[in-house]
């Protein structure tokens, strides 16, 4: 127990003293996972809305594939992405293996189905006559879509938080495609694994505490956006 308390104390100390390496690692985690979440939100909400609202043959199959994608194991994604990005792989010419870009790509692949799946559920949950009502008020098709998205913003924001949570906390893909290179692709999760392996449990716990604090802050902000202008 005092190991955990020591870790918390160490975390506060590292943050307070603005330890450069820890700050860099934290910032990189935020950048990489933030970028991946942004990408997944853009693709997930647009494609998810399209899938939810448009009737087409094979819709059930597509939706079940997306839902399966929500449970995609991150380490499997990491393995396949790294195979693609190897020098000898099909995308090797890009030379982005072991760079932050590779982690962003892998994390986007992990987060997009999560956001998409929740979007589909959220949009399909809207009252079926709402569409007609909005159209009856003289909206164009695009305006209708926009208003539907706004109407579903509560569960959609939950989807964004789920996507962010999924990638800020994952480690398998980040290690495989990022390589945990010091000062370059080392993020909070990969650094925690490394410090544990080295036996530096106090540092590992400190990093975990920082990661949790980061998640809490980001999700607090997102929740505030989600819950604004709700009747108290």
């Amino acid at each position, binding site marked *: 127990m005092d190991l955990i308390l020591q870790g918390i104390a160490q975390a506060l100390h590292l943050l307070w003293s603005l330890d450069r390496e820890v700050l860099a690692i934290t910032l990189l985690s935020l950048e990489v996972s933030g970028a991946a979440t942004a*990408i997944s939100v853009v693709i997930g909400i647009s494609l998810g809305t399209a899938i939810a609202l448009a009737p087409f043959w094979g819709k059930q199959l597509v939706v079940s594939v997306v839902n399966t994608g929500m449970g995609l194991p991150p380490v499997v994604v990491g393995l396949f992405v790294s195979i693609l990005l190897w020098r000898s792989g099909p995308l090797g010419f890009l030379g982005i293996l072991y760079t932050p870009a*590779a982690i962003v790509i892998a994390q986007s692949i992990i987060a997009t189905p999560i956001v998409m799946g929740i979007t589909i559920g959220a949009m399909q949950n809207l009252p079926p006559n709402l569409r007609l009502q909005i159209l009856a008020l003289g909206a164009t098709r695009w305006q209708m879509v926009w208003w539907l998205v706004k109407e579903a913003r509560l569960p959609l924001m939950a989807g964004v938080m789920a996507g962010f949570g999924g990638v800020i906390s994952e480690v398998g893909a980040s290690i495989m495609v990022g390589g945990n290179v010091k000062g370059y692709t080392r993020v909070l999760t990969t650094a925690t694994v490394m410090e544990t*392996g080295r036996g530096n449990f106090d540092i590992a716990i400190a990093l975990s505490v920082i990661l949790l604090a980061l998640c809490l802050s980001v999700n607090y902000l997102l929740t505030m956006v989600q819950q604004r202008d709700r009747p108290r």
Partner: protein
Amino acid sequence: MRHLESRGFKWVSLVALWAAAAVPVAKAAEKPAKTVLLATTTSTQDSGLLDLLVPMFEKETGYLVKTISVGSGQAMAMGKRGEADVLLVHSPSEEKQVVAEGFAIDRRLVMHNDFILVGPPGDPARIKGSKTAQEAFQKIAVAKARFLSRGDNSGTNAKEKGLWRAAGLNPEGQAWYQQTGLGMGDTLNVASEKGGYTLTDRGTFLALGRSGRRLNLAVLLEGEPHLLNIYHVMEVNPAKWPKVNAAGARAFSDFMVAKKTQDAIGRFGVERFGSPLFTPDAGKDPSSLGI
């Protein structure tokens, strides 16, 4: 708040999102000629040696070194696929094979440290006082004492398997022989928790013993000639894999055997542990080390 719904605002925010996402990608566009991919073992990373040497190299040469720290087996597999530029590993028999197959060139001796056999302080298999590692392993097998193996084709794992073979034993599949598939630090933690024996390099054992938690393990066998842990550096053969950074690999290889680096290796660990963790060996005749 009308402006928030205008088309212009939506497009600008979408573009801003994409731009934000592109920042890490743009930052990653470093010049490949300046990057050296070093595939190495977990022991060189976990002991902290590379944290000392890599910045030295980067400062001297201006290369950016990406240290991918996996087991020797995986490091050499990466080399054979051309996914690394230079290898720093400690699995001599497999290294010789990789060179013989033409995937690596210029294999040079860098340094050594030693392996030690650690186990529960109570020593249920009574291996303390054994003359050789083989003798100790035989006692463990007879006593069916719990033994933790890394089971990950690392240099340490290869050494351990070689010792079992030399003792004429095959512990695979036995209930007391447990494979973690993890790095040395993690395996030591498991051995400490479960009261088992394991083979470890001295550097990682010392480094772990000094951290917040005391390991519940005692050194039971050391100093035996078969327990030498020898590191070589070798470059991935550019003739087989033209995309490797041959110049960078060469520079790193030269750096590892250079006098200044060797001196730094020889001093590493003295401050923290009282004795150096590695013995520099560049230029020495390999047979003087008994390999």
